[in-house]
């Protein structure tokens, strides 16, 4: 009996981020408003996707100096609600956030990359030690959820050849040295001419995704576009440039 009633009067779906009721969109208006409010005063660097104050040039100082071998975009800056959600997902292990968070990535694809359609989705791999502790690779979960809703294939092509220590608190220079050659493409796979969407959770200096992109391009990929949940904000040109 109860079953029939819940079928006749389905309870309104709840927002995966805050639990309040929502409409047809995958999250509620409040959360969506908060997650996209950065667009009022920031815009992404057209190459690395890090966020610059509106009105500043198209390129960030880093990319002006040395353009990266990829284009990257993110769903927003690493702060506020987005930061909390990533923390809850990645460190607390709330796996059920994978789908709604992947929908944020889907929105970026749609809004900032004009509906770009890659051939293949590839997640940034996690070291086996950290996989043991965390029990899942957050990038892989995101990639497979996004692939599912886009109807595209996902393959964990990349292998971590050397383990790197956690990169938090290291300078960009050291990070780059540490991850150099840390990844390679599985087997002798050739990726001739394929357009690849590389997925990760947070873009910090771009060292990790940069090393991944290099490995993919070496295997023949035509282009690599990077999609992450969060990225950094560049407020003013750093003095050392």
């Amino acid at each position, binding site marked *: 009996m109860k079953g029939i009633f819940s079928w006749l009067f389905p309870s309104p779906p709840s927002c995966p981020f805050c639990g309040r009721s929502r409409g047809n969109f995958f999250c509620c208006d409040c959360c969506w408003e908060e997650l996209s409010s950065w667009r009022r005063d920031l815009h992404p660097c057209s190459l690395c996707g890090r966020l610059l104050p509106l009105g500043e040039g198209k390129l960030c100082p880093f990319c002006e100096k040395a353009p990266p071998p990829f284009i990257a975009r993110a769903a927003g800056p690493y702060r506020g609600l987005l930061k909390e959600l990533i923390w809850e997902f990645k460190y607390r*292990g709330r796996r059920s956030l994978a789908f709604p968070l992947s929908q944020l990535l889907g929105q970026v694809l749609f809004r900032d990359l004009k509906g770009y359609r890659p051939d293949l989705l590839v997640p940034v791999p996690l070291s086996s030690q950290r996989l043991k502790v965390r029990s899942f*690779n957050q990038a892989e979960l995101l990639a497979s959820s996004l692939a599912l809703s886009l109807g595209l294939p996902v393959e964990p092509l990349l292998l971590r050849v050397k383990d790197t220590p956690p990169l938090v608190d290291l300078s960009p220079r050291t990070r780059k040295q540490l991850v150099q050659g840390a990844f390679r493409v599985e087997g002798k796979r050739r990726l001739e001419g394929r357009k690849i969407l590389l997925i990760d959770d947070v873009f910090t200096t771009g060292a990790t995704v940069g090393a991944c992109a290099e490995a993919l391009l070496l295997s023949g990929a035509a282009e690599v576009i990077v999609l992450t949940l969060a990225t950094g904000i560049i407020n003013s040109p750093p003095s050392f440039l």
Partner: protein
Amino acid sequence: MGLTHNPGLDWTFWKRRGKREMLLLFPALPLSLAYFIFQELKDKGEFSLPPGVKLPLEWRGGQQAAAPLPFSPLEPSQVRRQISGRILFLEEVQKALMESRAVGAPLEDVLHWLYLQGEIDFRPGVGYDSQGRPICYRCGQNSSIVLGECGACGFVCPSCESCLSLGPSRGCRPLYIFPALEGLTPREEELCLPQLNFALTPAQEDAYGEAKEFVSQGKEGECLLWAACGAGKTEVAYGAIAEALKQGKKVLYACPRREVVKEMEGRMASAWPGLKVVALYGGSPQKFREGDLILATAHQALRFYQKFHLVVLDEADAFPLSADPMLHYALRRARKPGGQILWLTATPSEEMRHMVRRNSLKVIYLPARPHGHPLPVPEFIIPFWGGRLGEGSIPSAVLRCLKEAELAGAQVMIFVPSVAQVSCMERWFLAQIPSGFWGNPWVRGCHAGHPDREEVIGAFRERRFFALITTTLLERGVTIPHVYILVLFAHEEKIFDTNTLVQIAGRAGRHRDYPQGKVWFYGYKVTPSMAEAQGQIREFNRLARQRGYLK
């Protein structure tokens, strides 16, 4: 028959007891599956795998020489003595031990040895029930279990998201059960009498006596202390606690929020200066200490296992926790078999009220506030025509309420059903009456997620403006001495259920200097919830008058 992570250890154990052969099931399984098969074999003598799981399994027999133990023979009993009445994951056992001593030996092996000796038990964090459905053994819930490829065990592994805030509970993480060790050693009565620096009111005294009797007679397993909002129910619970302590019983005092636990720690420590009062909460310096009286958040109770003779849950004006199945489960599991639970609340769940009506739950009433004035009874305002909120001019009935409050020198808290309504109503009131009452602006809105929440509430507390519009979700801590209450859209039963309305009405007339507040429910009809809330408050007043508690 048993489960093992290290068959060599089992060999050694059974060899020493003269066993010659051991049968092992291959291949090695994740704990959740192994435990399921183990249970099936124990109950039925045979097993089938949970639906959807296919694995080629085979039994292999054999013999092996006994190996030396990887730890000192004293280690297991030392570990055992440290932990009593707990249900913990390996890391938590480690932390518990580290709070008192260093851990050297491979802990998993030491615990397994205790398991083989039958002193402790273990199971997966998340396993499968007898129908093969996943269930979390830490929190008892099955409503938010996620299945997924697990990097820790390499299998598809269930993990629970209901109790995630206490760390992950997964199919491959063993959860160890340490039965309680303590017996009853009566304490001196002197030590157990609470020292209060004020006298109990007659209403409190009566309820105190009844609570004491609940424990001393020990006839009922559970009891509800149903108190009017602001009637001082904590002091009444002291009656039950003092009696339990005297008998040498273990007592857990659980509160919904960390802040309340911290506050209660001070109050209890001064009430029982001769006893060891320990508070456990997320972020407390120690989480596994022993004490005579343990205070904990209801979440921390998930880490106890049949330890307490008396569990007291103080809802402390929060929304009814008794409706949360996980915390219910936690408190009932923390209690010893045959132990007692005392629920302290102003707003018992529907289920509990029903049990009280059927006389199947013992209840102690505390119907009067310390100042001895009756509770403000909510008045219903139902406009027959017009009277719409948010459009046109303000209905005269609403205006009359505001005027009456202003005349009495009171502030007004206006409750609305949703966050969106807060700003909507704020704009409407200000558009209709730009500067009618004191304060500039005279009315402001605020809700739990409001950016300037602290500032707005602070200003309202300091009486810098007349009226505050808010939702039910605003924290309970906001108490204003002289305040009238106006609930708009009170007919929205999904938000304004009986308990919520009782809580809201309970904010008026609390203060000794302003014991006569006013409460209005403004709605387009009278809902059963509105009627029941009013009925409950009237009933309390009637009871208080009848027992002679009112001035």
